[in-house]
């Protein structure tokens, strides 16, 4: 399948700020593609470059094989759903949606028909003759989507379209967006700083960080196999371990010496899945998600082929019903462990504050990150939100 929307080495700076820094990626036709990243990482700027409101300093943007870099906004076959909706306050809902068609000088009865079917799609038929000031936030949101979609753009750009809505409404609109995308089959480019939104809607996600795309992959890949420590910590929670390869027993696995665990008696290294093909002496930055750990009072019975087992002390417990979060100390480290309750909890031997426990995980469930350096201290060297 051909690439549909393509960025080739696009950069944009505002004074000293590199808002978008040499970004290259491509979006497939009909894909739901998300740009995910913290505030100020350049998501909106990227979107505005596609819409044509900003010109890149360097690089090219291709749409369906055509170079659109120099095209003014009104000549680009893309439409935007603005963060604040930007509905025309002096026009009715109907006229707002009809605007693009009127500009394109489409026949009157065709306009009528198209707008009506759009109103139906977003379930706003009964509000057609209201002014934007007379409808609610969620309804404005839907009108904004309809106003953009009615022009049958090649790409629909959405800039945090749900940010202004309350949680309940956001969840409903999320489902509706998904439905609309399935119905119209148009390529969606969705900007958000909310990982939940991005994970649940997208076919693929580009994780952005200070103007750079750190990883472009499916939601599951981004979560399970984060490339960098930024991605690992921005999407979900994780534990980072810094270490040095001490031995490479076979092609797939290596033993890693972790300084934080140095004073544990009998510790002879953590077994890691070695997909980066590290040699002895190589630096390793390992990410293990909290839910990948097992924790128990008794020594673990089931043995995996490549299992790491450590002694740990429980420092903190937060029970949340369907799972429990533990913070345990191992060596000089605090590690977050999330346990789902598959069995009936009260039948199990309870784990209490201060207990000595067994901590274990399958070497296959840890993931080596691309960046070898310790993660940015700003992200917290352990787990967000501890």
């Amino acid at each position: 399948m051909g690439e549909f929307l393509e960025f080739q080495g696009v950069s944009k700076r505002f004074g000293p700020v590199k808002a978008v820094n040499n970004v290259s990626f491509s979006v497939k036709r009909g894909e739901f593609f998300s740009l995910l990243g913290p505030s100020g990482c350049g998501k909106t700027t990227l979107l505005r470059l596609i819409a044509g409101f900003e010109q890149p300093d360097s690089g090219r943007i291709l749409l369906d094989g055509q170079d659109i870099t120099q095209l003014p906004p009104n000549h680009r076959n893309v439409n935007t759903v603005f963060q604040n909706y930007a509905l025309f306050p002096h026009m009715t809902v109907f006229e707002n949606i009809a605007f693009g068609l009127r500009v394109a000088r489409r026949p009157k009865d065709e306009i009528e028909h198209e707008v009506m079917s759009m109103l139906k799609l977003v379930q706003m038929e009964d509000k057609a003759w209201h002014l934007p000031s007379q409808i609610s936030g969620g309804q404005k949101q839907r009108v904004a989507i309809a106003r953009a979609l009615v022009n049958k753009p090649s790409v629909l750009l959405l800039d945090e379209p749900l940010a202004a809505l309350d949680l309940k409404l956001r969840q409903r609109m999320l489902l509706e967006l998904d439905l609309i995308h399935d119905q119209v089959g148009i390529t969606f480019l969705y900007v958000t700083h909310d990982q939940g939104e991005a994970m649940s809607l997208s076919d693929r996600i580009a994780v952005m960080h200070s103007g750079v795309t750190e990883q472009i992959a499916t939601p599951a890949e981004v979560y399970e196999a984060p490339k960098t420590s930024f991605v690992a910590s921005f999407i979900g929670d994780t534990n980072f371990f810094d270490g040095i390869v001490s031995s490479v027993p076979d092609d797939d696995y290596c033993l890693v010496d972790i300084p934080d665990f140095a004073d544990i008696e009998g510790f002879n290294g953590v077994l890691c899945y070695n997909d980066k093909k590290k040699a002895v002496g190589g630096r390793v930055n390992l990410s293990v998600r909290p839910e990948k750990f097992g924790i128990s009072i008794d020594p673990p019975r089931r043995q995996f082929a490549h299992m790491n087992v450590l002694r740990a002390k429980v420092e903190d417990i937060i029970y949340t019903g369907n799972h429990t979060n533990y913070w345990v100390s191992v060596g000089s480290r605090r590690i977050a462990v999330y346990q789902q309750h598959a069995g009936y909890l009260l039948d199990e031997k309870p784990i209490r504050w201060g207990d000595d426990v067994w901590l274990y995980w399958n070497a296959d469930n840890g993931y080596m990150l691309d960046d070898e350096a310790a993660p940015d201290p700003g992200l917290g060297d352990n787990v967000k939100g501890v």
Partner: protein
Amino acid sequence: MTRTSRIPLATTIAILLFFYIPIAILVVNSFNASSTGGAWGGWTLKWYQKLFANEEMWHAIRNSLVIGVTSTLVSTAIGTSAAFALYKYSGTRIQKVHGVVLYMPLVVPEILMGISLLMIFMAVRLPLGLFAIFLAHVTFSMSYVAMVVLSRLQDFDATLIEAAQDLGADAWLTARKILLPLISPGIVAGALLAFTLSVDDFVITFFVSGPGSTTLPVQVYSMIKHSRNLPIINALSTLMMVATFVIVLTSQRQSRRA
């Protein structure tokens, strides 16, 4: 037992009396048959008749209207574009200077404006008269228009323009369909203000009006020197007040619209 204080009510009445008694006396006197105005001489409309028969007065009114309309049109056009420029390029240094320059006529004493305009017109040998008055009026009313339109623009959501372009509209269509409809109340309010200012202006006009080009306020001033004309001026003032009242009311209606 609670007793609401009567003081606010009393103050309000006192202030209203203070403002409106002179006007009321003027209005009543315009119907007063006694020409001295000191005593009541019975109802009459003869001052209005005299007013309507006064050739010079009609001439002055015509001048005022001609200048009022033309200077309003021109100053609205210039003031509006100035406001757009200030809005669009706000923050750049040249626009800050522009803003101050535009603001000047609002704060400089009128007499100073009058004298300086007179000096310029003399220097470039522009004959004093209707055209000079027109130029002078444009000079100050465009500042007012610019300020009124600018304040309207500052409430304007700039993403609406991007939204229109995003939907395929070019600059011209965006201006016509989005920008103008949304700020036209501001433009209309500015134009009405410019018109009232022009018709009302005495000081500046006095300096730059030549012989035979008197406007209404200047004419009134010259008539007031003869007491026999006073009742006629009362009649004129009453009519003008009614007219101004109507204009102000319309202007408020316009600017109050969303």
